[in-house]
């Protein structure tokens, strides 16, 4: 995270596989007031991977132009979301042996431990995008603020997100082309969690952000990020399965998915006949609703199962040798499901079935009602994350000359 204090104007952009959304907000008393919002269909991204940079850049430019025009303000810097398998996360640790005679931790010890953690080089060809703080351990006990406490061995942990250098430069370049600076990257799953999970939830919760191209997940434990990951399967796969199974176009499949789809397949779906258009006119087709729910539920539940396996795999990597169980004891708040594909009927029920955890659909918490839908959790969360993760403003003692300059607005 940057250590610069927060500006009063925050712009965020969430580039997804299906759509690109951007939000401009005015920060008043630590809360965002929406100035303008824009979303457009994303071009040039398939399965969370950029395939046509030119088209994508144009799409990003259009969206940014929209919010500038809508608000009458110029955007100078912007927060970018980071999602998909390109952003790889891992845990890094830094140690320091507490040297003072009385064995009390000083602020300098913490800084040294942090530096030693950040000295670890990312794999060749990858750049570090961001560090997210994980619990600090003093003599293997988690502590929230170790300064002043007695102990021998101080350990700081970070969840480090790295990205292939070329990929990162491409994303930054996309925005820089408009003379806008990338202020910071924010992990998309973290953003989605900030929009939908309360601080109490973050004692233990798994947030699954199921978008069009990818399904990103993040696990919070004791208010900190424990681990995060991404599965390259999303809502487009639901649509694709349906279009293959019924041999219909992408548009028809998308439409049927929204109108008749479900993440659960039930016995009595099988004998329901549904009409594509409903007017029974020329070109109208009838389908078995059971086919639709069967195809969708298999894919949906499989994707959640992939997430469950991925979470366990990462937990085992963090706690080698421990039998890690993903149950309600570990994450009392269960699963929060959000993102565009969380709107599929019975989605929470399917998650409950696969994970055995309580599950609910996360609606982003935002003052503007039009954005209170799971599909906007990403963009709303970017704004929330940008505000909450920013360091408190630092008041610098200013010299006489500086005050004088201020007075005359020099």
């Amino acid at each position, binding site marked *: 995270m940057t250590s610069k204090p927060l500006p009063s104007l925050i712009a965020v952009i969430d580039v997804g596989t299906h759509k690109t959304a951007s939000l401009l907000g005015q920060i008043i008393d630590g809360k965002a007031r929406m100035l303008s919002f824009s979303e457009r269909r994303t071009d040039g991204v398939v*399965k969370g991977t950029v395939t046509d940079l030119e088209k994508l850049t144009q799409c990003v430019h259009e969206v940014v132009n929209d919010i500038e025009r809508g608000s009458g303000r110029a955007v100078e810097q912007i927060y970018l979301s980071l999602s998909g398998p390109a952003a790889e996360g891992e845990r890094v640790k830094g140690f320091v042996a507490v040297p003072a005679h009385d064995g009390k931790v000083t602020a300098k010890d913490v800084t040294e431990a942090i530096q030693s953690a950040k000295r670890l080089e990312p794999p060749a060809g990858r750049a570090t995008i961001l560090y997210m703080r994980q619990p600090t351990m003093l003599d293997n006990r988690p502590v929230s603020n170790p300064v002043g406490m007695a102990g021998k061995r101080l350990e700081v942990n970070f969840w480090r997100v790295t990205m292939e250098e070329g990929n990162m430069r491409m994303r930054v370049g996309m925005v820089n082309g408009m003379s806008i600076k990338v202020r910071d990257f924010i992990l998309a799953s973290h953003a989605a969690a900030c929009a939908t999970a309360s601080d109490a939830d973050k004692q233990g919760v798994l947030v699954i952000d199921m978008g069009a191209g990818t399904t990103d997940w993040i696990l919070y434990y004791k208010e900190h990020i424990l681990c995060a990951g991404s599965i390259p399967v999303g809502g487009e*796969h639901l649509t*694709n399965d349906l279009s293959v199974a019924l*041999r219909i176009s992408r548009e028809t499949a998308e439409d049927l998915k929204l109108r008749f789809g479900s993440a659960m397949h039930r016995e009595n779906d099988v004998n329901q006949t549904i009409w594509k258009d409903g007017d029974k006119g020329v070109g109208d087709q009838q389908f*078995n609703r059971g*086919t639709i729910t069967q195809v969708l539920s298999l*894919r949906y539940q499989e994707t959640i199962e992939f997430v469950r396996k991925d979470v366990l795999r990462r937990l085992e990597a963090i706690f080698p040798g421990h039998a890690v169980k993903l149950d309600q004891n570990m994450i009392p708040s269960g699963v929060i499901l959000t993102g565009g594909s969380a709107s599929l009927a019975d989605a929470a029920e399917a998650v409950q079935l696969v994970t055995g955890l309580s599950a609910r659909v996360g609606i982003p918490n935002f003052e503007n009602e039009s954005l209170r839908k799971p599909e906007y959790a990403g963009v709303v969360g970017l704004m929330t994350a940008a505000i909450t993760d920013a360091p408190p403003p630092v008041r610098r003692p200013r010299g006489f000359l500086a005050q004088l300059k201020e007075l005359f607005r020099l």
Partner: protein
Amino acid sequence: MSTPASILLVGLGGAGCSMVTRLSAQLPPEVAVALLDTDARSLSAGTAATLQLGRAQTRGMGTGGEAALGLASAESEEAALRRLFAGVPVVVLVTGLGGGTGSGAASVVAGYAAECGATVLSFATMPFSHEGERRMRQANDATVKLGQKCHGLVVVHNDLLLQQVSPDAPLSESFAAADSWVGGALRGLASAFAPGALIAVDPAALRSLLSTPGSPTLFAYGVGQGEGAAMKAARAACDCPLAHAPGAVAKVASLFVTVAGGSAMTSTEAFEAVAAIRTRFGGETSTVLCARIEPALGDRIEVSVLGASLPAPKAPAKPKKGAKAEDPAQPIFEFATEESMRRGLFGGTPMTFIDGQDVDVPAYIRKAVRLPASP
């Protein structure tokens, strides 16, 4: 070695040979059988003509999954293969793709048969999703090559076979389903050309139907019994999983329909069945109908359907001897590849593997779940 039979059924590779061996018991006498493999053990079976490929390359040990070895093995037996195909009007090639012999040799064998003047129809099985990335890629590549060499190509997904039977059924039962489809097609074709058909056709009709190499081929098969057997069979053919496989052709321009039944079958019944088939599959440009009485069938009626979507106004110019068919200057029909068929809108994008499965392939196919029938 020329055979008097009108159809030569060729099993290629381990999977192809075992399927043909299983089938050979229930075939009409008009069908001659040949087995080709690199692995000498597959060739020991009874009455069929056998040819061991690549004796020098593999020493009778099989290819170990190497398609390049399968290809070289087939090329080394060119003279023997051409002798085998000489004078045969229709060659039906049955092979399993994914392994070495099938994937490597299929297009070569089909190519020799076509050059010898035969109409080549291939049935190729695709590996199970669980067999992993390498075999699937090899099979995908092989279908594209094979599709360009033979006149008709019907792809049978092994995943689809699993969908046909209950989850606790023995594996042999799911393979029996594949046998019955291919067997039905062969009996249909064989009886069409044999003397004694009510409405007879000659192999040239099949040739004109399948005259465009690389065009997607439709195949369906159905059986009906008892009252209204013909309609039951036609409906079963319409619902045949092979015709519903992802990416299979929905409607075609030309159809070749064979109806076979016991002595009680009437021509009205046969025509009704054909009308039902035409409603479902098209066949506006031409529908070749063949009907035949086979007393052995009793009150059962079998319907098999072959179709091609590209109407062929004239036979394409034969490639000159020695000219490579892969010549980029020659227009090759865009064949709907296995990849685009199974991966739908994701066709053409890089595969994404999780736990060794390509997750862009619909989940219901990989999990082999049978979908409820359409209304």
